[in-house]
């Protein structure tokens, strides 16, 4: 598996983690995407957003469904923005496209769910600033989430 320098952490409840995995599976083999409200380093709420590309290798958040949750999170000084998407066939690591597009949301925390091993989904968490990727340790109900073997 591709590694990155570890910096920081993100916490989530098991319920929210399961919600993300279920959503990733819901449109397999296509990529899915959504936004997350993060409060004090904890995932608070997930907002599924339609993938306007409906592609197995790309996503583009549909502007209409993306608008209200993005605006709500962005206008709230107490919330940080999380961007979630799935990699149905590849590892949970930012692709070259992910890194390039992150330039437009440098403040976001990026969560990627891999379904490469369908029985062992993996969600990893990244910060991408100026083309540089660092990874956060992801705690689910206080325990480190699996990062998989591949």
């Amino acid at each position, binding site marked *: 598996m591709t590694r990155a320098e570890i910096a920081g952490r993100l916490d989530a409840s098991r319920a929210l983690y399961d919600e993300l995995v279920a959503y990733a599976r819901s449109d397999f083999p296509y990529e899915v995407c959504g*936004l997350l409200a993060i409060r004090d380093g904890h995932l608070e709420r997930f907002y599924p*957003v339609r993938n306007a590309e409906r592609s197995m290798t*790309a996503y583009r*958040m549909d502007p209409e469904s*993306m608008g209200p949750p*993005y605006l709500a999170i*962005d206008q709230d000084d107490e919330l940080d923005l999380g961007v979630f998407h799935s990699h149905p066939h590849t590892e949970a690591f930012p692709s070259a496209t992910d890194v390039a*597009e992150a330039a437009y*949301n440098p403040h976001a925390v990026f969560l990627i769910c891999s379904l490469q091993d369908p029985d062992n989904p993996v969600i990893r968490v990244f910060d991408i600033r100026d083309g540089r990727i660092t990874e956060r340790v992801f705690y689910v109900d206080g325990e480190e989430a699996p990062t998989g073997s591949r």
Partner: protein
Amino acid sequence: MAIEVRVPTVLRQHTGGEKTVTGEGATLRELVADLERSHPGLGKALVDDSGSLHRFVNVYVNDEDVRFLGGVETPLEDGDTVSILPAVAGG
């Protein structure tokens, strides 16, 4: 005429950190030019040299995506709210 413009975090470096600014314009194109005058860099972040909306921003007038309204020619009225958000994409 006053149009409220909501500015996303990523563009607040052009507004001195303000999340909301006001502008004028009978169309989105005119508003963008007005915003560029009062907040240099903000207008350029929305519209490219050919006058089209950048692909990496989404602009909404009263919560409707302007790509469905009239693009940069979308008419504006006093009291309208324009929201700017970055596009979110990847692969």
